[in-house]
């Protein structure tokens, strides 16, 4: 699905990312973990061609993401508020995203309504603009919007932060439920969630991959142990 080769990203001559080789296969749930400044968001932004990489290449289904736009049809991401449109109501936003994937508004809304338990009655039909929603509710809108149009690759940056405990668990359920025909690429500081939902764990530190293992190869305890300050 995604092939990364000799990727390097420098900001003012400081190297923030250096990945010689990394690839993600279809159907994987990849959890990227790492302390602040490890390069998680930089990696996601590079895959989405939102930043210019200093060296190396990233291909999606064999096409260079910086040269083509085909990947935009099957890739969906929610990294931060930069993916929300503040002056739209949630319904309008969902419909807009749906339209980008050539879905009719009614198809989109039918799809979205199945997440009502996550929305908890605070999002649909509230006649509020997204910019007026709380941080948590904005997050819910962003996460769900990334599932519209049945994308093959879903990229979520810190999907669990700012969410209440029940919703965190529901989002985990979502990932498991939709993983059959999707690749999930998520980052999180919550080691529990990562250890329990991901099929593969990649640990980044100062821009380098220090561990890339299947879940079966690393227990939750080992993961916690890894991040315990010496």
């Amino acid at each position, binding site marked *: 699905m995604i092939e990364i080769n000799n990727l390097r990203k420098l900001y003012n001559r400081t190297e923030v990312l250096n990945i010689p080789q990394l690839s993600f296969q279809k159907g994987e749930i990849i959890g990227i973990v790492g302390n602040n400044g490890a390069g998680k968001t930089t990696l996601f932004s590079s895959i989405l061609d939102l*930043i210019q990489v200093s060296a190396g290449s990233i291909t999606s289904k064999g096409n260079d993401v910086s040269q083509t*736009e085909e990947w935009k049809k099957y890739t969906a991401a929610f990294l931060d508020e930069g993916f929300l*449109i503040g002056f739209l109501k949630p319904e309008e936003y969902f419909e807009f*995203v749906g339209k*980008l994937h050539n879905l009719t508004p009614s198809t989109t809304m039918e799809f979205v309504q199945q997440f009502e338990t996550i929305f908890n009655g605070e999002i649909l039909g509230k006649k509020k603009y997204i910019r007026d929603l709380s941080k948590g509710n904005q997050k819910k809108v962003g996460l769900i919007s990334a599932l519209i149009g049945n994308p093959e690759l879903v990229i979520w940056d810190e999907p669990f932060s700012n969410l209440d405990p029940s919703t965190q668990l529901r989002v985990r359920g979502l990932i498991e439920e939709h993983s059959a025909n999707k690749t999930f690429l998520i980052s999180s500081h919550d080691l529990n969630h990562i250890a329990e939902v991901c099929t593969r764990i990649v640990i980044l530190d100062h821009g380098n991959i220090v561990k890339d293992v299947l879940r079966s190869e690393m227990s939750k305890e080992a993961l916690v142990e890894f991040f315990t300050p010496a």
Partner: protein
Amino acid sequence: MKTQLLKHAWLEFRRSPTLTRNIIQTILIGFLALYFVLLMIGMALALRPILEDVMPGQDLLIVTGGFIGYYFVTDLLMRYFVQKFPGLAVKPYLPLPFKKSSLSHYVLFRSLGSFFNFLPLFFLVPFFFKEILPTYPAAALNFALFTIGMVLFNNYLSLGINKYMAARSSWAGIIIVGVMLLFFLDYNGYLPLFDYVKNGMSIIFSSPILSVIPLVLSGGLYLFLHRFFKEELYLEKTQSQQNLMGANLSVDWFDRFGDAGKLMNLELKLILRSKRARAYLITSALFLLSPFYLVMMGEVFMESPYGLLAVGLCLTGMVGINHGQILLSWNSLHFDLLMSRGNTIHDIFKGKYYFLSLACILFFAISIPYVFLHSKILLYSAVMLLYNLGFSLFAYLFLASYTALRVDPNEGGAMSFDGFGIAHYLIMFPIMGLPFLLYLAGSTIGGEIGGLLAIVLPSILMLIFYKSLLNGVVKNFRSHRHKIASAFRK
């Protein structure tokens, strides 16, 4: 404690983005302010000789009274659309040990710091000492009380309207049409509006009781607003204007334009629901009144092709100049979505071009009735419409594909210049100057027809090459996309 608040107000002004972000902009705003100030002072000094020349034998005080009456109505309109009021500014102070009452006084006091309150003083003070006091000592006090009172009254009235009525833009259309109608009636002599105002003012200036009314009203308004703010300071961050008339407008017809059409509906909603984008639209709409200025300037300008070209530019080009110039910046808050999901870059630019073209055409259509005011206005605006579609809009697209600055479309109003860089100011000269040069060149060969053809033919040529031009813009944007996207993230 209170001096602390004032100190912060001063710092906020000194460090405001408009003044600190780039030097050219600061200088430009400085010049603009200076221009208005000098204009006011100049008017104060030159009004008597001019009036003696234009309306000999008329009483200076009474005629000036008429103008002042007009001024305060215009002033109220301008404030209504343009003046910004400190609102949220008090939020950080709420949990601190400040009395609510002093915060409320602070908000009301700060609103006086607006340019709108200082500007008339540059006319009123010199005029008062040079003309009124020596010639009309009896009416002098009334004149002073009335005019100062009106400045305060307008300030607090528009503050009140601003805080009370969210539905600002729906009124805009009604007010603009109303003003156009009044001007029209006045111009054609159906309604001697100026005489009414003049007579009203001369009655006011002769009566101390009437003169003091605005002052009393502003006092009342102040107390009322003070009480209102004291109670409502919690709710200062009210919900944004969801129930605004037209805010839910969606044009299904845009879907005809395919993938680009999806983005056109987004653009429409952006304008309707974002404070600054709306203010820009209203500013553009105000330029629809420009033919009246032409008429007021007199025969010389009305018959001059350059005057007519300028009017054509004002009628059909202002949406481009206001909204189109910071083309992509409007989307800076959600640019990452547009860059990574579903749509292509080509869709974005195509949508922008179509949207702006339709806006220009709409403005042209609205101004068709001006043909009754002056038969040539229609022809000249049609020519300028073509120029805008063929030249200006592409210039904005090309500019946007090189460089852009972050803009929060819901922050600031018509007088905020965030998002405008040096390039934006520089590009104005060729865009606004080119049609005049083309006309000049063409008219030396073929007179008026030649001049107009010199504008029309190249414009049509540009439109014929629309596809390649658009592809050029997209190609150029692709090589600058990371720089632009990162500028939008700040």
